[in-house]
């Protein structure tokens, strides 16, 4: 088991990464909500104008759309090819449904570049073992300053000032 201070650092590190993941999830939830709302509204429409036949038609359309999506997914992931394994197929589906839905606006090349750029500043710092001087802001507080400071540090910001509390410290 890791010593106490190492565990605290590991928790902080995971917290930062979980925060990012949680934001992505929130974004994904919003997307889902946005797109699923009209469909569910039609399907559950209580107006008398929409009769049972209409409801059945709408539900059938939804099922048809789902089948079509599945077919496209199977086609793109190569599930029909006899050589592909089950693991590859599931990996393909999860990429298409999960990662693809969130990141498809960036495109694969841009997404790769963004991920690499993110890796430089949000890298595993290994407890500052390889740093020039170990006791820096991240090591002492567990917080990561921005990649680029556009202005000098503001004295009235408690995150940066000398003792974290007072306006006049800087």
């Amino acid at each position, binding site marked *: 088991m890791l010593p106490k201070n190492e565990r605290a650092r590991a928790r902080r590190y995971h917290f930062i990464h979980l925060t990012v993941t949680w934001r992505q999830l929130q974004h994904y939830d919003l997307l889902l909500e946005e797109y699923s709302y009209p469909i569910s509204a039609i399907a559950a429409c209580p107006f008398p104008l929409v009769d049972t036949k209409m409801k059945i038609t709408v539900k059938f359309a939804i099922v048809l759309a789902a089948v079509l999506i599945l077919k496209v997914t199977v086609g793109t992931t190569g599930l029909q090819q006899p050589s592909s394994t089950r693991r590859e197929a599931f990996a393909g589906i999860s990429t298409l449904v999960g990662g693809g839905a969130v990141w498809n606006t960036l495109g694969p090349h841009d997404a790769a*570049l963004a991920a*690499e*750029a993110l890796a*430089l*500043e949000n*890298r595993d710092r290994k407890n*500052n073992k*390889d*740093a*020039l*001087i170990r*006791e*820096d*802001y*991240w090591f*002492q*507080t567990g917080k990561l*300053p*921005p*990649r*680029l*400071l*556009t*202005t*000098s*540090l503001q004295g009235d910001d408690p995150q*940066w*000032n*000398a*003792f*974290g509390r*007072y306006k*006049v*410290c*800087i």
Partner: protein
Amino acid sequence: MTPSGTHLEGTKFVFSLHCCASIDFQISLTLHTELFCFAFDDSCISSVDGGNSCTYVSLKQRVPAYGKYGSIIAQGAKEYEALGNILRQSQPDWTQALGLIRADLGATTVDAELKMILLATALMTSPNFPIPSKELLVARFYANEVHYAQGKLRIAVEGRSREDALRIWEFGKDSWNSEFQVLNRHITPKVGDKFELIV
């Protein structure tokens, strides 16, 4: 008298305290200032003119430090900028690029890393307070980022990978400029010229 209103009379210090709006009184102490600040944190920010003795750094400390390290840091920044210009070319001169990033070939960029930390320590460590201020920690953080970026950049230049080198150079440029943002606030006209940001 320091800007905080702390009067120095031999080993005797007189502190003006504002505990709240209605109470205003003075105490004379023979304690060392840093001990007093450490024990009574509020006293360090309470003064007549609103200054802070705990973060006060004299010109006597800042000027020699700037004179000692400033020119190397400025030269390092210029070389780093020149390296960026080389990498932006369609066919970079890798030999020249290596000369600007490898310490064994006399690159000032690498020499400037440690000088940045030394200058930040001299500019931001007050003799009145023994603990490094958060601002100093931030300066150290960006110096560490520069160190990391230049290490990666050296590998990319040695591998002659232009895209990687440019991407890492951009990251390093942000770190250099952030470091200058922190340092420049302490470089008043009496200390010297502020560092120019890398473009």
